[in-house]
């Protein structure tokens, strides 16, 4: 197929491919994402009422939410939540935990070094690289602007 035909074909195919259920997906993303955030708020409030300051409570909440995401993945439930919730399951920090536990579990049979430990970061690796990398750049810019 030549270049022009390929473009025509792509447009033709786009019409043939069934469309996602946009509205339903958005509602489910809202409900699932909102639920995870509310659970986070509940944990924060419990930690605060036990005398933790703001920063400590935030750190404790992160740890707890990561644990919840990792446990749900281990139990084989997070993929089902993700299927229904889409971005509502991907964006909360529980989704970040899922992106680490899922490949780590999957590659256990390839060993604990090049399997579990190396594959843990297939999705999370880029997140940490760009996240931490950009934070350092922002730190350096802050210094320059001072």
């Amino acid at each position, binding site marked *: 197929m030549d270049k022009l035909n390929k473009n025509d074909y792509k447009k033709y195919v786009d019409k043939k491919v069934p469309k996602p259920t946009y509205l339903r997906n958005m509602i489910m993303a809202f409900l699932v994402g909102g639920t995870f*955030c509310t659970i986070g708020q509940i944990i924060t409030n419990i930690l605060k009422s036990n005398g933790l300051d703001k920063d400590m409570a935030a750190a404790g909440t992160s*740890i707890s939410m*990561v644990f919840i995401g990792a446990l749900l993945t281990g139990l084989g439930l997070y993929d089902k939540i993700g299927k229904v919730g889409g*971005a*509502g399951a991907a*964006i909360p920090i529980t*989704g970040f935990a899922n992106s680490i536990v899922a490949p780590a579990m999957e590659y256990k049979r390839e060993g604990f070094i090049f399997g579990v430990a190396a594959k843990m970061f297939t999705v999370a690796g880029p997140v940490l690289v760009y996240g931490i990398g950009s934070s350092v750049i922002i*730190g350096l810019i802050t210094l320059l602007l001072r």
Partner: protein
Amino acid sequence: MEYIKAFIVGGLICIIGQIILDNTKFTPAHLLLTFLLSGVVLGALGLYQPLVDFAGAGASIPISGFGNSLAKGAIKGANEKALIGAFTGGIEATGAGVAAIILFGYTMAVIFNPKTKD
């Protein structure tokens, strides 16, 4: 009220993500990165923190909140400890979550086996 704010703001952030997922070729991995970096940029400009102050976990639980913490930490580090702080600030602020992810991630992988889908 606190809970309602967290639910609605967190849900709305996820709706933005769902719109991106359904209209692009993005995978959830692309989505995580996009939201993280948006959080870093908005955090550095001081635009994300007001949302966290308003909605609490609704803004801090989405991965963009993680990005905001990274940016905030780096700025704080740079202001307090100059060059070394610029390097350590981001990780210090988010260290708890990252350490938890590594420990729990590894533990769960050792305990559980993946199941096939049906």
